[in-house]
């Protein structure tokens, strides 16, 4: 039941006395703890001050999850969901994993209690627990299925074996389970959280492996993994959806008819006039089978006799034309006005003809002339006329239609182009934009557009609200936190962070700071977790709280400097980095306190350089210097500083990421990718490094690759807003507009299927 509650975020964690501590946490501690092993790496932590001396923030390399003690020999017997606790315990009593069996006992207690009074520690009558659960689960119309002892225990065992499969790397086998009577809501919770947790557990495994694991789990629990993909978006904007559906019927004809009408008309016209042949055909229809061409030919044959006579004239005209041309080139004004030239030019234009050595005006033969001239111009072939016509039509006609059509559409404010649309229709933008969309797509029934647009607007507003909150230093807590009521959330969060379960760690640490708002360490760790989870706004908000409680904490000051640098807030970043120097026990004397009001970058950098000269072996000074140079965009110096620091702390994953980010920002993307890879080898769940890899690929124009990394980062932290925005840009740049909807509705299932890493 313990694990079930943890995974589902159920209420039992909050029930006083149901268990003395969070059972999963205790179990996980003893399973994954191995604190002695990681002890020696304590000095390589990103924040060196650690509260509990027996634990370490540092995950201890990439082999940590596969070499934990006490795992190698047990998976078989416990795979069976009905494994007896006693058997299990017997198997472990020999080895000294006391913690493990303690944890196990703890989990057992609530279920075993009623049946075995001797084991009952804190005697909480089970019905009360159930009552509380029903109460907490809200006022659902259908009664919540009662989780009596045995099914709860089965589920708990089952989830344990799932977790255990993470450490062994053995694929998780499906199991037949009795009907557990899970509600839809429970199923949804299990599905969501197990897939996020699985990605943390199996960060070093392939995507297919993770999906197979999760699917097996869900299948065994009879949970549909496509749950959300199939149904409507659960509960997000139900009223809006309803309203939309309602209005759909009424609006659709109005909106669509004009669009369709125009499109139909246009395509009709197009099919009539599109190809050049069509015009010829139409022409032929109007003017008889052979049309003008044949008419022209007839006329020509009638005049053949005259042509024979006129052929002489033709020659003469040709010659006089050339003569006239030559003469007109002559600049002599006298010559220009001479009668001879006038005569010649008249001859050339055919106004005068020479007939039997007599010069006559050309009236009688005008028709012949016309024909002649026409033929000359068109080199005799009657088809050329038709050709020319179709050519003209090609360039003028069809295009003309299209132009005319689009011009008309513009009049009606329904241009494909949204921009133009907005320029011309400032105030009716909603209607116009939507209409433009639909015309642009040319399909009816794209009903989701309105909804999308509205959702976008809403989420944007939410972001604005959050932003204004966090700029005031307000921290936004998650709702439905299963760690609320946990006896030691700080320790729990610390452990989860160390194991790389960042999103879980956030929840545990939030529970801690809700309980103890004055705990600087809780806030600090929460801030670091948010930063690693790629959420600088929340990181700043929690670090601010830590700073309020403990204004001289060096890690807090450095973290604030880094986060403000990331947010491009230069003045704030400089202030905190200077504060770091001021409060440092060794370098504090370097920094005169009266300077802190008017800071100039060059002064601060000078002070830090002095500090670095004083103690070149202090990695922290190099780190701060690296951040400072990032602030002033002197990337080469920044890279050098981080490289110096890495010589002293080669296993600090956050330092590798800093180096990578600096290299990426100074367009050395290939080097950056290597550095990120180092960071991820040391900490496979480092969401920030995954997201940064995506950014590096995108900045190189490799959008397809970037999408995979963004999706990977988001699978581990679906709350990383930046990554969602960047993912959207990459999708449209990679011409994957088909996936934009999945991105906008934050449907990770679809995205992960489409873009496995």
């Amino acid at each position: 039941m313990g694990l079930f509650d943890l995974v589902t975020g159920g209420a039992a964690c909050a029930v006083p006395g149901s268990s003395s501590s969070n059972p999963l946490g205790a179990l996980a501690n003893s399973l994954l703890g191995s604190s002695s092993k990681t002890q020696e790496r304590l000095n390589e932590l990103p924040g060196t001050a650690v509260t509990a001396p027996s634990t370490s923030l540092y995950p201890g390399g990439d082999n940590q999850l596969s070499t934990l003690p006490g795992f190698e020999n047990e998976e078989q017997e416990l795979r069976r969901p009905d494994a007896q606790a006693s058997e299990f315990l017997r198997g472990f009593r020999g080895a000294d994993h006391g913690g493990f069996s303690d944890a196990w006992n703890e989990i057992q207690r609530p279920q075993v209690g009623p049946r075995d009074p001797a084991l009952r520690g804190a005697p909480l009558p089970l019905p009360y627990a159930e009552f509380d659960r029903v109460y907490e689960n809200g006022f659902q119309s259908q009664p919540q299925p009662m989780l009596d002892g045995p099914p709860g225990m089965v589920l708990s065992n089952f989830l344990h074996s799932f977790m255990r499969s993470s450490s062994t790397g053995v694929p998780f086998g499906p199991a037949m389970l009795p009907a557990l009577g899970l509600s839809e809501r429970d199923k949804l919770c299990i599905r969501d959280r197990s897939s996020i947790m699985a990605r943390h557990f199996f960060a070093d495994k392939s995507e297919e492996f993770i999906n197979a694991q999760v699917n097996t789990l869900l299948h065994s629990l009879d949970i549909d993994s496509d749950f959300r993909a199939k149904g409507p978006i659960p509960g997000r904007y139900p009223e809006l959806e309803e309203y939309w559906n309602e209005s759909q019927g009424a609006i659709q004809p109005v909106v669509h008819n004009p669009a369709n009408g125009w499109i139909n008309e246009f395509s009709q016209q197009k099919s009539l006039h599109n190809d050049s042949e069509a015009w010829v055909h139409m022409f032929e229809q109007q003017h008889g089978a052979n049309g003008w061409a044949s008419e022209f030919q007839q006329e020509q044959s009638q005049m053949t006799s005259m042509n024979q006579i006129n052929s002489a004239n033709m020659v003469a005209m040709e010659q006089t034309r050339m003569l006239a041309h030559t003469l007109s080139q002559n600049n002599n004004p006298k010559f220009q006005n001479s009668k001879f030239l006038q005569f010649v030019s008249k001859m050339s234009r055919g106004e005068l003809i020479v007939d039997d050595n007599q010069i006559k005006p050309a009236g009688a033969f005008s028709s012949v002339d016309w024909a002649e001239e026409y033929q000359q111009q068109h080199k005799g072939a009657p088809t050329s006329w038709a050709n020319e016509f179709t050519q003209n039509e090609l360039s003028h006609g069809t295009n003309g239609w299209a132009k005319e059509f689009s011009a008309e559409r513009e009049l009606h404010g329904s241009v494909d182009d949204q921009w133009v649309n907005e320029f011309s229709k400032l105030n009716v933008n909603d209607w116009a934009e939507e209409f433009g969309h639909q015309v642009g797509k040319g399909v009816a029934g794209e009903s989701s557009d309105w909804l999308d647009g509205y959702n976008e607007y809403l989420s944007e507003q939410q972001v604005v609200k959050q932003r204004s909150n966090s700029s005031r230093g307000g921290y936004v807590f998650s709702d439905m936190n299963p760690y609320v009521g946990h006896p030691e959330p700080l320790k729990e969060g610390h452990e989860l962070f160390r194991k790389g379960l960042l999103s879980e760690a956030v929840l545990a640490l939030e529970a801690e700071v809700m309980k103890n708002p004055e705990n600087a360490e809780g806030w600090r760790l929460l801030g670091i977790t948010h930063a690693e989870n790629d959420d600088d706004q929340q990181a700043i908000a929690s670090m601010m709280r830590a700073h309020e409680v403990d204004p001289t904490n060096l890690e807090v000051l450095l973290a604030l400097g880094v986060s403000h640098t990331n947010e491009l807030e230069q003045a704030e970043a400089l202030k905190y980095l200077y504060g770091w120097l001021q409060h440092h026990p060794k370098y504090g004397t370097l920094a005169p306190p009266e300077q802190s009001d008017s800071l100039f970058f060059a002064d601060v950098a000078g002070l830090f350089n002095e500090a670095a000269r004083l103690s070149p072996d202090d990695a922290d000074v190099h780190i701060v210097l690296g951040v400072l140079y990032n602030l002033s965009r002197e990337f080469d110096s920044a890279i050098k500083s981080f490289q110096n620091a890495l010589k002293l702390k080669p296993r600090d994953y956050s330092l590798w990421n800093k180096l990578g980010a600096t290299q990426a920002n100074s367009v050395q993307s290939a080097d950056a990718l290597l550095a990120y890879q180092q960071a991820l080898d040391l900490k496979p769940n480092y969401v920030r490094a995954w997201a940064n890899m995506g950014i590096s690929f995108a900045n190189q124009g490799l959008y397809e690759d970037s999408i995979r990394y963004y999706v990977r980062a988001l699978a581990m932290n679906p709350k990383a807003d930046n990554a969602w925005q960047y993912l959207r840009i990459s999708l449209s740049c990679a011409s994957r507009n088909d996936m934009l909807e999945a991105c906008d509705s934050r449907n990770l299932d679809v995205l992960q299927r489409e873009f496995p890493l």
Partner: protein
Amino acid sequence: MANSTLKSAALLDQMKLHLSSDAGKGLVKKIGLVYQLNIAPKKIGFEEEVFVVDLKKGEVTKGPYEGKPDATFSFKDEDFIKIATGKMNPQMAFMRGAMKIKGSISAAQKFTPDIFPKPSKL
């Protein structure tokens, strides 16, 4: 740009470097337009700093463009960052008056978040 305290200046510095990369050269080939950005710290039109993103020559410079830019944008520092990082849709920004545009509309349409490099996080 190093002496500017605007967030946008930091991003435009990165843009400058970005334009020397292969992806940046691709932008010059693809877009080939000159944009002038008037960026105000608090309110549009007040204490503006002027930058030119020249996607014809592939440069970013401070100060007004000599000649006629294809399009001129005015926004607040924060809003420019939002647009360049994809937090705000340029069309939305324009509709809400968070962005003002002068010049060719077809040039303005090509001013999209994907032309700016994304800052990586330390």
